[in-house]
């Protein structure tokens, strides 16, 4: 498994799409978490992010600000990475090349998942680092004091972000295996994350109690609840305290394990055509 993991890391690092997704994620986080709200503040205009007053853009809010995108749009990017990492083997027909080298299917699969988990951690660390740098600049420009979250809050925030990002990456991997490709898993994954989750939350849940209850068991609302518990603002899409933070973490952990197990089972049992 170690050999497979090393090989997967090399593939991830050398694949241009990986870096494109990372840059895109950081750019989106920077724009929507800091730059647009700051432009609104500096210009004295209100808007959809009018909750984002200057104190919300300072280093003290680093944890919530860094996690806010993970339930929806940053999560979608991690899901795409998961699909590309596993589904690319179907698209290029390289499963047969890999699986005739010696490692078992499950060892190869485990190597991929480990590499994805590392990539998710790198993304979350990068989000925190970019957010930290940006908020320090804003504090400097606005002559505000720089106060950081406690180390414990930072550690919990990093852990929660890593958990959520890894869960989405595993969902991407599962979709790629289930649908044996790249395009359809990305399409369906994005429809679920960007459209269906929002429709359920905004339209169906207020109308039907059972939908509102069912939401408490879905991965997106739990991710939104977890980041809300850690300080993400409610004006970010997908962020809402539907359940408590502890329950949300457990549910997300459960989904992560279920996605891993389902993907492993499918890959182990199915023929490589």
């Amino acid at each position, binding site marked *: 498994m170690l050999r497979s993991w090393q*090989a997967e890391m090399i593939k991830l690092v050398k694949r241009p799409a990986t870096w494109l997704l990372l840059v895109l994620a950081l750019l989106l986080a920077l724009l929507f978490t800091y730059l647009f709200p700051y432009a609104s503040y500096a210009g004295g205009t209100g808007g959809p992010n009018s909750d984002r007053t200057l104190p919300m853009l300072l280093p003290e809010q680093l944890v919530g600000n860094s996690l806010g995108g993970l339930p929806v749009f940053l999560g979608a990017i991690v899901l795409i990475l998961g699909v590309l990492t596993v589904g690319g083997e179907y698209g290029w027909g*390289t499963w*047969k090349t890999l699986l005739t080298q010696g490692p078992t299917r499950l060892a190869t699969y485990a190597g991929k998942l480990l590499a994805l988990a590392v990539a998710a951690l790198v993304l979350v660390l990068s989000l925190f680092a970019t957010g930290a740098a940006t908020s320090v600049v804003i504090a400097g420009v606005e002559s505000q004091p720089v106060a950081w979250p406690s180390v414990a809050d930072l550690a919990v925030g990093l852990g929660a972000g890593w958990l959520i990002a890894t869960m989405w990456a595993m969902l991407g991997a599962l979709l790629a295996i289930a649908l044996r490709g790249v395009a359809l898993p990305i399409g369906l994954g994005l429809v679920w994350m960007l459209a269906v989750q929002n429709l359920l939350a905004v339209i169906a849940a207020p109308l039907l109690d059972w939908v509102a209850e069912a939401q408490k068991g879905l991965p997106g609302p739990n991710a939104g609840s977890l980041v809300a518990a850690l300080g993400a603002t409610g004006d970010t899409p997908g962020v809402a305290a539907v359940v408590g933070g502890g329950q949300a973490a457990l549910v997300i952990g459960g989904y992560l394990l279920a996605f891993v197990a389902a993907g492993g089972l499918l890959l182990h049992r199915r023929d490589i055509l």
Partner: protein
Amino acid sequence: MQPPVQTTGLTKRYGGLTAVRDLDLTVRAGEVYGFLGPNGAGKTTTLRMLLGLIRPTSGAVRVFGARPGEPGHLGSVGALIEGPAFYPYLSGRDNLRLLARYAGTGAHRVPVVLDLVDLTDRAGDRYATYSLGMKQRLGVAAALLKDPRLLILDEPTNGLDPAGMADMRALIRRLGAGGCTVLLSSHLLGEVQQICDRVGVVSKGQLVAESSVAELRGAAALRVMAEPLDRAEVLARALLGDDRVRVVDGALELAVGPQRAAAVNAELVGAGVAVSELRLRERDLEDVFLELTSGGLTHVA
């Protein structure tokens, strides 16, 4: 000693379609074995089952005595199945290094196998820029990475130019001579005829013949164009016996070797028969293949 490849009653069904049916196949150590069959006959499905990529519906597969999925099953096996497949954003060399890491062989074999397939000069270029022939050569290089004792090659000369095909044949012969067992699936029957020790022919998922190339092709015959033909036939039957003479497409076909050609010619000419052509007729593998795969089952010992 366990044979490199042994299948017993190997069967693969997809719903109502039987792709491979009750296949018993044994490839002996050190031989170059040609695995022939028309499109859809079940060749690639069989090869994939040998490699553990496809699970048999029933029957058993053993590669050096190990079942697919058991430790060591693929440790000594190199394979190129149904065309090469690599990562387009990596160079040929990096693709091989990556596979060496999966295989745990270390990268020291990479320059060796690149040289073997004559790809060293372009090894630093991205795989996406390779021609079909270069991709094929990289596929063969990957199959050789583990310095395998069993090499499974599915159409290895696809996309190669004539010089490349000749090089590939020479390489396979060299590997065979060096003790590597080669299981070669190919549509190019001339190629198989030149380099294989034994061949197995599959049709509709079943093994319909398995033998040495020479045995499959059968004995040579003499073909005689003569006038008048009926007079020539009578003379030939008298000389060689009824069971060695038949008329095929307006000519005599005599089941004797070339050493009888002079006597046949003298007999016919001496009796006033005009002989316009007398030549040795050897069946090539293509004739045999078409017979075997278009008709019923013909088991050759």
